[in-house]
């Protein structure tokens, strides 16, 4: 039998529910008179969510801010109740919704351990037994009798985490708690989580924005979007889908904000009228496939005579890292442009950048003097969709912008002495040393 069963759970919040007593009285009177009081449409934080978790499973829950992750966890922890549907949890549950909830500034570290562990449901005898372990994990031996208002924020978080993870329960609910403390402590937290999950075989629900972590720890991942489960399956697939949606969202905000951000300068002699991207079938698009052929068409309005203009088109990331720039020098006939409307076309074969969101930058300068006429960043934002590439596995998310067209090969090298494995590695080192010494030879020769 499933240890957690969530069946058709819907959670609604009535927006602006906290109106004044006066309004409540008016509404109540309206209802008494048989009229319906004015009501706002409820906001669905969760919409018909349905899933089961088997014992020992590690379920990741990912999604954007406001997708309903925390609402879901709160309902599993019993903090809040579903509007419709039901939740069955068979087993003891330890919610780490936020570490350090309930720490009291005026109390010492020791007192806070007792207080916080009691709040989380640990019995007094059990706390006494685990006390030293908690203190050691939090690295607070020296300060344990100091009021925690004198602690640094990092120390408080360590204390909270150490107490929270000492709770013995069959189900562990973890909400964004791993990103605490300095790097060394984060490492320690992560190891502790991995220990709880992998070796102690507990059932875990993990909510995080750290997708890489979710992918590594979880056996199954739920993707929530606007309160709905839009995917429930293997970590890699779900995480990839999440990346895709993220990109789309960045792209959409980019589109709406495109006009405002980015550097734009013009001498007033020419202006951009339109920027459109076309796919290989000649349709105007904002999304293109990885390695598709595309055409960019820019409409210019020229106001004065422009002698021998040079056009440039570049591609940059959403954070203005310039990835590529092309200039029309030598590709277009040199002539003076008379005032009027022009359309510039630039065709790119096999668009090389990996899936993500990119923007165009445009420039026009006068030939010879290179005097700028017009410059615009963020002129058009577009998204590259990955067809079948598995980014998280093949390239890692955002670990680069282009894929290399290479082949891998690994083979053992035959050696004179019969030692095989470690010997070949030593051989590699020797080769590297050879390379560097030949460089210095050249150096000597030149002198």
């Amino acid at each position: 039998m499933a240890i957690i069963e969530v069946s058709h759970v819907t959670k609604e919040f009535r927006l602006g529910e906290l109106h004044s007593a006066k309004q409540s009285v008016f509404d109540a009177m309206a209802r008494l008179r048989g009229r319906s009081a004015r009501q706002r449409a409820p906001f669905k934080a969760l919409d018909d969510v349905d899933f089961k978790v088997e014992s020992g499973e590690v379920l990741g829950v990912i999604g954007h801010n406001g997708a309903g992750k925390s609402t879901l966890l709160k309902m599993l922890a019993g903090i809040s109740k579903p509007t419709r549907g039901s939740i069955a949890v068979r087993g003891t549950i330890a919610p780490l919704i936020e570490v350090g909830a309930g720490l009291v500034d005026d109390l010492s570290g020791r007192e806070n351990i007792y207080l916080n562990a009691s709040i989380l449901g640990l019995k007094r005898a059990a706390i006494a037994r685990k006390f030293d372990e908690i203190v050691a994990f939090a690295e607070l031996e020296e300060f344990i009798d100091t009021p925690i208002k004198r602690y640094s924020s990092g120390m408080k978080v360590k204390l909270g985490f150490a107490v929270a993870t000492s709770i013995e329960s069959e189900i562990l609910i973890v909400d964004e708690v791993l990103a605490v403390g300095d790097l060394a402590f984060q490492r320690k937290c992560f190891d502790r989580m991995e220990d709880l999950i992998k070796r102690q075989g507990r059932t875990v629900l993990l909510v995080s924005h750290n997708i890489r972590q979710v992918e590594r720890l979880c056996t199954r991942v739920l993707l929530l979007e606007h309160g709905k489960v839009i995917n429930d399956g293997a970590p890699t697939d779900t995480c990839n889908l999440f990346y895709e949606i993220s990109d789309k969202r960045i792209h959409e905000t980019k589109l709406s904000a495109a006009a405002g951000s980015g550097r734009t300068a013009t001498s007033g002699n020419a202006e951009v009228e339109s920027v459109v991207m076309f796919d290989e079938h000649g349709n105007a698009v904002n999304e293109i496939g990885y390695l598709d052929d595309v055409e960019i068409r820019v409409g210019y309005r020229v106001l004065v005579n422009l002698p021998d203009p040079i056009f440039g088109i570049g591609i940059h990331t959403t954070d203005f890292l310039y990835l590529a720039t092309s200039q029309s020098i030598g590709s277009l006939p040199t002539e003076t442009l008379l005032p009027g409307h022009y359309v510039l076309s630039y065709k790119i074969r096999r668009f090389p950048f990996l899936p993500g969101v990119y923007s165009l930058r445009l420039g026009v300068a006068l030939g010879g003097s290179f005097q700028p006429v017009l410059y615009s960043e963020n002129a058009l934002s577009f998204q590259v969709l990955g067809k079948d590439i598995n980014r998280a596995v093949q390239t890692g998310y955002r670990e680069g912008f282009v894929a290399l067209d290479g082949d891998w090969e690994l083979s053992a090298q035959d050696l004179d002495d019969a030692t095989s494995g470690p010997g070949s590695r030593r051989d590699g080192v020797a080769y590297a040393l050879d390379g560097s010494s030949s460089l210095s030879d050249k150096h000597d020769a030149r002198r």
Partner: protein
Amino acid sequence: MITAIKNIIDYRELIAVLAWKNITVRYKQAYLGIGWAVLKPLTLMLVFTLVRSFVGIPSGNVPYPVLAFAALMPWIFFQESASEGVLSVVGNAALIRKIYFPREIFPITAMTTKLVELCINALILALLMWWFGMLPNGQVFWAPVIIIYTMLASLTIALAGAAINVYYRDVGAGLPTMLSLLMYASPVIYPLEMVKNKLLVQRAAGQWSDVLYTLYTLNPLAGIIESFQNVVLRGLPPDLTALMPGMILVAIALPLSYLFFKHAELYFADVI
């Protein structure tokens, strides 16, 4: 109701730890420490004694300061556990949003905290009695029962009040005022004997006297204070006629208050 009692037993350690936290935090950086707990009844007792020297309140064969202190003890316990109980849920909003345990723990903890202060006041009362050369007799063993009844009466207000306070903070603001008014309708400054005399002996309100007296004793504190003074100071049994109307009221209202609280509890985390 049975689950309520089971919850209290299951979570007794948590209640104890939270109450200990309340007390430690409140008095941690105060020089007088828990001494503050006795300051309020002591000063009120002195003020009442001073006022009495002008207006003349009969106190029977018990010295007035002791009588007043014995009235203030259950009264302050009731008033403070009720008003702090009402504020306790909203005051722990951070915990309510993050961790689940039965929410009635909060008003009960507020009351437990006050119970500790009551015990300290009991020591002061014992000192006062020793000073005035008074000794209690066997009836004093009724006192804990009366205190338990006081706890139930204050929970009746605290549970419903705390639940409403989550939605409308007016309750938390208004209740202390209401309760301090209730003090004048309770035999704190004057003994119940005076009211009895006026209504039941002198029949000051004519045919309405009996009704008025029942109405007066509908306030649980009337019976509580009178009985507490009886068993501790006068060596008499609890005054059942004064207790009965209030007891019936609490017996009806407490389950309703609890059910209302448990119903509202489902939405605390969403609204608070």
